[in-house]
């Protein structure tokens, strides 16, 4: 028996009918076609499905869409403003804070929540804040650097410079 729910996602109100068992992740990806939120484990460990639920991070694979009735949700698609990247997104870009990009929605959500709670996080606090999101590409270093830079408002050109470049 499907139920009607009303949710605001990235500022847009939606009214939809869902089966009670439909996971919020699947609702966002299938019903609303917001495929930026990713599914990595469906048991609340990998963090790729993290969204903002009423302003706080939540794992959308551990919620049913019916439970989100009345909620205000932000997904990765709703992070930027007017088509511009946020400072955090810019910092990820500049610091190579993503490779395959699959964990990126979770990383951005969790790092963003950290920076809202703590404007000057230590490296340890950054690590802790993103430790609920698994990444298998980056080894996390560039992500930590990105969050650190975003916190300091230092987002600019890629800084990496190592020898070995092209003695052609």
């Amino acid at each position: 028996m499907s139920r009607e729910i009303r949710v605001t996602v990235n500022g847009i109100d939606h009214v939809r009918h869902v089966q009670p068992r439909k996971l919020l992740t699947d609702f966002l990806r299938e019903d609303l076609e917001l495929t930026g939120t990713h599914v990595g484990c469906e048991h609340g460990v990998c963090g790729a499905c993290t969204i903002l639920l009423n302003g706080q991070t939540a794992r959308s694979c551990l919620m049913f869409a019916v439970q989100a009735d009345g909620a205000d949700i932000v997904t990765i698609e709703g992070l930027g403003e007017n088509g511009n990247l946020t400072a955090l997104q810019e910092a990820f870009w500049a610091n190579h804070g993503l490779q395959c990009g699959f964990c990126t929605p979770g990383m951005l959500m969790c790092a963003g929540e950290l920076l809202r709670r703590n404007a000057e996080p230590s490296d340890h606090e950054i690590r802790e804040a993103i430790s609920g999101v698994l990444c298998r590409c980056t080894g996390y270093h560039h992500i930590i650097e990105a969050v650190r830079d975003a916190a300091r408002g230092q987002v600019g050109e890629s800084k990496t410079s190592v020898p070995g470049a092209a003695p052609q």
Partner: protein
Amino acid sequence: MKPSAFEYFRPTSIDEALGLLERYDFEAKVVAGGQSLVPLMNFRLAAPAYLVDTNGISDLSYIRRTDGVIALGAMARQSEIEDSPVVAESCPLLHEATKLIGHRTVRNRGTIGGSIAHADPSAEYPTVLLALDGEVVVRGPAGKRVIPARELFLTICTTTIAPNELLTEIRLPVLPAGTGSAFVELNRRHGDWAIVGAAAVLTVGRDGACSDARIAVAGVGGTPIRCSEAEDILEGRGLDETLFEAAAERAAAAVDPVDDLHATADYKRAMVKVFVGRALTLASERCRRMPDV
């Protein structure tokens, strides 16, 4: 990995919830934060026919301090507890344990009531409840009853709360001045279930002797375990490392863990000694730092 079908209810009052639990009994499950139940449902290990969502009950998420007791509504989120100045000040053990639960994202949804009712033997909150001799309030068809921590946990994920009852409140005593506490745990990876967790609470009187010692451990049995014999070693004595070691050894001797993928039973037993010892040392440092009464 998709859950089986269920009928969903979102009661807005405790009475409405109790009515549903009464009607569906064993077939119903309460979902609070969902951080433990929903993974089980996604794996189809749990397949309740009726899901009673208590997130719509508005008056269950308070954190109050009254008359030497901190009372927390069952739906108080772990992140609210983490950020609560009342908790930090009046129940530092709860505050410290909260920060060890999963990750911030988990704590944003997870509730204290859900964690205690789920009764995972490796979880932090059941261990804190037992260490502090707290109690829980449950409501059922026959009205309200209060269950002391020592009578709450039966075995893995099993409590004395009946299927038609709802956990509504958690009560923890505010400990006297001169009390220090610590929650430490060992896990292979940050945020995981503890292989071994240890909570210690020590109260030192004016004479410098330990007037009250409480030790509980997680992860080494079907429930969190209170280490009474180890406590006896400490009570009435002046605290020092030798005594802590003796108490920790006694705690380790009293548990009977089993092997799992991550650790052998022998290792877990040895770690009870190490982590009870560490918790005691930390707790005693903290109680000495407390101002005199």
